């Protein structure tokens, strides 16, 4: 009996590892293909493992394209958007959770309604604003429209609602200002929520495609997501260079993933709260 159970366990474990490897396969293929000599046939075992490895592709990409600039753009935009976006959301959520004021329900409803409005349905009028402001191919145009995120406000508000009101009373009796309450009580207490949300929004911004495609058309203002397909379209028979560009663009994301895995998981789980 115990033997059959053991065999079963081994089979299931092998099956599970096989499933995991299958999911990883495209990434592993990208990884190996990136280190192959230009125009190597990377579709056979011999091509992948029997031929020499090189970092020439990376050198070539860095020399012939603006890939560092694109990486910087992606990083800069994602960092500003997630940091400032979090700050704005935290402030707004604090008002909605703590402060009593006329029209609060209306403001909350207007923000809640924003959850239903995807940017895809607004690109046309949004683009018109950017044209009128002459913000095409500027960082302002790339960053500002994505700063106010209703989802972040809702998540913060849910957390702030759970902070004991006694803390506010105590601060009030000590004569502290309401700004101090936000800065010294709510902000520090929401550290976990903030960091999880921050990473989540960073990844979202890093992966943005439609908006930068419209606004960052100048090659020095392109983000990686926009520039990669343009760069890759110049190779018709080679697979190694496109894969190198893919790997180059993925390394920062993979590093962020490995360091902040817990926060990312928490951030995603939070978006499922309703």
């Amino acid at each position, binding site marked *: 009996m115990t033997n059959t159970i053991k065999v079963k366990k081994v089979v299931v474990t092998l099956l*599970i590892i096989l*499933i*995991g490897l299958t*999911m990883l396969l*495209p*990434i592993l*293929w990208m990884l190996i293909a990136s280190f192959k000599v230009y125009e190597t046939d990377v*579709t056979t075992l011999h091509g992948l493992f029997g031929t020499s490895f090189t970092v020439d592709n990376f050198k070539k990409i860095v020399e012939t394209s603006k890939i560092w600039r694109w990486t910087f753009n992606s990083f800069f935009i994602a960092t500003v958007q997630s940091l400032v976006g979090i700050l*704005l959301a935290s*402030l*707004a959520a*604090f008002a*909605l959770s703590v*402060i*009593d*004021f006329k029209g609060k329900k209306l403001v909350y409803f207007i*923000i809640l309604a*924003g959850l*239903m409005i*995807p940017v*895809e*349905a*607004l*690109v*046309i*009028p*949004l*683009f*018109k*604003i950017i*044209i009128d402001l002459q913000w095409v191919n500027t960082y302002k145009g790339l960053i500002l429209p994505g700063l*106010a995120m209703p989802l972040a406000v809702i998540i913060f508000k849910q957390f702030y609602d759970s902070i004991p009101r006694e803390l*506010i009373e105590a601060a009030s*009796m000590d004569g502290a200002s*309401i700004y101090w309450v936000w800065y010294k009580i709510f902000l520090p207490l929401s550290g976990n929520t903030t960091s999880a949300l921050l990473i989540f929004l960073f990844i979202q911004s890093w992966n943005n*495609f*439609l908006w930068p495609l419209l606004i960052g058309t100048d090659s020095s203002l392109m983000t*990686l*997501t*926009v520039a*990669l*397909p343009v760069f*890759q379209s110049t190779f018709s*028979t*080679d*697979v190694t260079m*496109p894969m190198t*560009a*893919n790997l180059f*663009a*993925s390394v920062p994301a*993979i590093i*962020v993933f490995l360091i902040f*895995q817990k926060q990312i*998981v928490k951030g*995603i*789980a939070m*978006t*499922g709260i*309703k």
Partner: protein
Amino acid sequence: MSTNRIKSSYNSWKAAFVFLFPFMLLYGFFTIYPLFNGFIMSFHTGRFGIGEEFVGLANYIKMFSDKHFYGALLNTLFFVAISTPLIVVFGLLFAVISNSRFKGANFVKIATFLPYVLSISVITSVWVYIFKPHIGLLNNVLMNIGLISEQIMWFDNSLFAWTTITVATLWWTIGFNMIILIAGLQDIPHSLYEASSIDGANRLQQFLFITLPSLSGVLKMVILLQVIASFKLFGQPWLMTGGGPGNSTTPMVQYIYETGFRDWNSGYASTLSYMLLFIMVIVAMIYNRLTKEKEV
């Protein structure tokens, strides 16, 4: 909430204004204003402000007799119908595997989740090169092991093209849904499983009568998020198939994009955007209504 022990300055208009102003300013300018302006634009012709002219309902009348609109709408609905069940089923499957106590469970979780952090350009590029005839991985592997004798033209046939889009999307987004579902699985009290195994329930019965009902709230949420995400489909066909062959994989957002930024017809593109928004809101409302009735 406003007890006497809290300073009146805490609940002042001024304080609320200071905290809300930065968010509401940007939200008003970049979400509320375009929402209304888009509606106004949908009754005009013109190229983003140039030669704008009021045309009444002309854009809407045009839309209802535009076969490209119906084509793009059907493509979008097709994708919603295909991708949602697949992603939810696979998401649940991977969540159950990752949440199990078998060795390698955590490896599956990481491997499934990793693609989610890669950008859309990377995932579409990798899958294009997997499916690409002649130089791509899949065809050559299939030929080498003798399963096919000639190259399959994955991007020349609309059903095959949809397959490439769906596979890439699944690979990219299963991890996201898996994470939400794992959180849901971990909220189910262990005592439920223990009690049922004493009663002699097997694994399948436990899954059907404990896991699924306990997950219903989370599943409802995951399905809604997925339906909304699928309605917004753009990057995958844009980067993988270009909407082709023909227009057979062109979704609504791509048609809006092409109308607005290739034909520079901002009025008609606004009309199409409003239609998309309208349909999404209606679908979400119907969905909420349906799932609520089930709960009662």
